[in-house]
């Protein structure tokens, strides 16, 4: 009990510290911070499913895209409302629609195992991406604009920084709560041996579905913020294979074994690609590729894993 309290306190302190940064940093660094929080948020959401159950989804960009478009379309209906209402509508739309879709496909798709699940999620992302483009009602091909929801008195990048930080904290809190709950233990059992878990009475289908819906819905909420930050989205900007891959890479680089892994991974990868590689114009794709290979071969448990191995000596 004591340890849990310590963790919560430490987390609150860190969040408070992070929240003060926009008063000291220049806008560019605030934006980098914002990028990190969004990437970390996506990675944690993905990890909520993969880290606990070992169901590796290759199509989480579907939820980002769905959340983004749901928010954009919902905002059209409340164009004249107050900023707070608009923001709430956007978040709820993102969370609700993405979560809803996750709930709708949960049962059939979670019956698949291993690589089949992975590819199926990719297929879901592809289908949804195409649908958004193909049917004019979604506006994916021409693109949709989103209003600027930052209040006049606040700097835009600081506003989104805090919003993203808040959501990241929420998502991490949920993941942490899961890990401490019966649901979490059940999911871990599924990861170790799903058939055995089922035989031992763990309600595997229900638990998997809960994790899946939470993972998808929260990704959708983050997707809404991602879209608001961009201001204008097309199918290609939110239904991107590279978004799915980033979530996986970030989690792996940081370490799949703990909640901090995806966060650390996202921070490291964002810093490297945005800060260091910004100048290496022509070769940054290749360097990123080499980095990924290096991490997988040299540090398969990620940075967090390395740390743990160190402290065990």
């Amino acid at each position, binding site marked *: 009990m004591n340890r849990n309290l310590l963790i919560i306190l430490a987390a609150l302190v860190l969040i408070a510290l992070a929240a003060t940064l926009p008063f000291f940093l220049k806008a560019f660094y605030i934006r980098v911070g914002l990028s990190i929080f969004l990437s970390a948020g996506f990675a944690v959401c993905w990890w909520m499913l993969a880290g606990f159950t*070992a169901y*590796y989804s*290759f199509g989480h960009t579907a939820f980002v895209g769905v959340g983004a478009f749901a928010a954009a379309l919902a905002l059209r209906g409340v164009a004249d409302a107050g900023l707070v209402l608009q923001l709430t509508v956007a978040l709820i739309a993102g969370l609700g629609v993405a979560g809803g879709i996750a709930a709708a496909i949960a049962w*059939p*798709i979670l*019956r*698949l*195992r*291993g*690589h*089949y699940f*992975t*590819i*199926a999620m*990719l*297929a*879901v992302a*592809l*289908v949804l991406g*195409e*649908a958004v*483009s*193909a049917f004019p009602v979604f506006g994916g091909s021409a693109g949709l604009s989103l209003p600027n929801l930052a209040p006049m008195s606040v700097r835009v990048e600081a506003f989104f920084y805090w919003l993203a930080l808040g959501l990241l904290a929420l998502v991490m809190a949920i993941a942490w709560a899961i890990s401490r709950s019966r649901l979490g233990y059940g999911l871990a059992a599924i990861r170790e041996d799903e058939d055995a878990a089922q035989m031992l009475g763990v309600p595997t289908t229900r638990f998997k579905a809960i994790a899946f819906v939470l993972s998808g819905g929260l990704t959708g909420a983050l997707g809404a913020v991602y879209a608001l930050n961009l201001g204008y989205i097309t199918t290609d900007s939110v239904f991107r*294979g590279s978004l799915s*891959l980033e979530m*996986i*890479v970030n989690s*792996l680089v940081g370490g*799949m074994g703990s909640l901090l892994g995806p966060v650390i991974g996202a921070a490291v990868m964002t810093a490297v690609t945005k800060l260091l590689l910004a100048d290496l114009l*022509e*070769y*940054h*794709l*290749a360097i*990123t*590729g*080499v*980095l*990924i*290979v290096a991490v*997988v*071969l040299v540090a*398969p448990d990620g940075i967090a894993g390395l740390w743990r191995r160190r402290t065990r000596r």
Partner: protein
Amino acid sequence: MTTLLQTLINGLLYGGILSIAAVGFSLIFGVMNVINLTHGIFVVGGAYGALIAWSVLGIDPLLSIPPLMLIAFAVGWILQRAVIQPAVERGNPVAALLVTFGFTLVALNLLTVFFSSSVRSISPSYSFINLRLGEVSFDLVRLIAFGCGLALIAILGSFMRFSRWGRIIRATALSELGARLCGVDARGVYAVTFAVGSAFAAASGVLIGMMLPFTPAEEVTWTVYAFIVVTLGGVGSLGGAMLGGVLLGLVSALTQTYLGGVFTNMVMFLILLGTLLLRPNGILGSAFKASR
């Protein structure tokens, strides 16, 4: 009626392209249970190889297939041995996937730097010849590509069926432990399998380069199409790759004519999803690993 017939012919020929492209992928997925994200880049690499052979050395693309296959074989072998096998042995199921993605990024970058993202096309003299059979027309190039593709698949099929290596590969796919107990060097087998898969991917790339304009970024498309074809037709089955490809080609052509061009991709992806949900083994598949 003519429209329907023409649509079916178009679909068949296009389907041939899709089958050819999926062959190498099917082998690797079926035998090694690795999602090979480098597939598309070998396809595109083959196309660029043929481009150089044709535009710089004046060699007909069809003749450049054997040497390009050898090069792809070598690259694939080294890649598997040095990078993919160690990744798989690290235990993490997505390790191989990520590592193949990493390699693809590097190769993509190099191709873009070297060739630029200009749209290219290989157009030997017979590219524009058209054949007519009554009211229906077809391109000679597509017919030739279809024929070559069939030949490639037949070669691979007989290799797998009748050769010693083919038997060893199949045995290892069915049971790695069992094969090892019989003295098979499993690692060597995987390296050869990957190399063979890459070689065929490159060969298909040459044929595709003759029919469709390409850029380095196309590699994503071909990897995804390979997924769909293999899933639909059945993992680990070459006949499945052919069937899957042809079916997909027909669906694509029919959708384009009767539903509208914008829906073709969506329908193809729906088929992928549907197959996975209803019959993950695919039509002719005999998956080597359990799917659920």
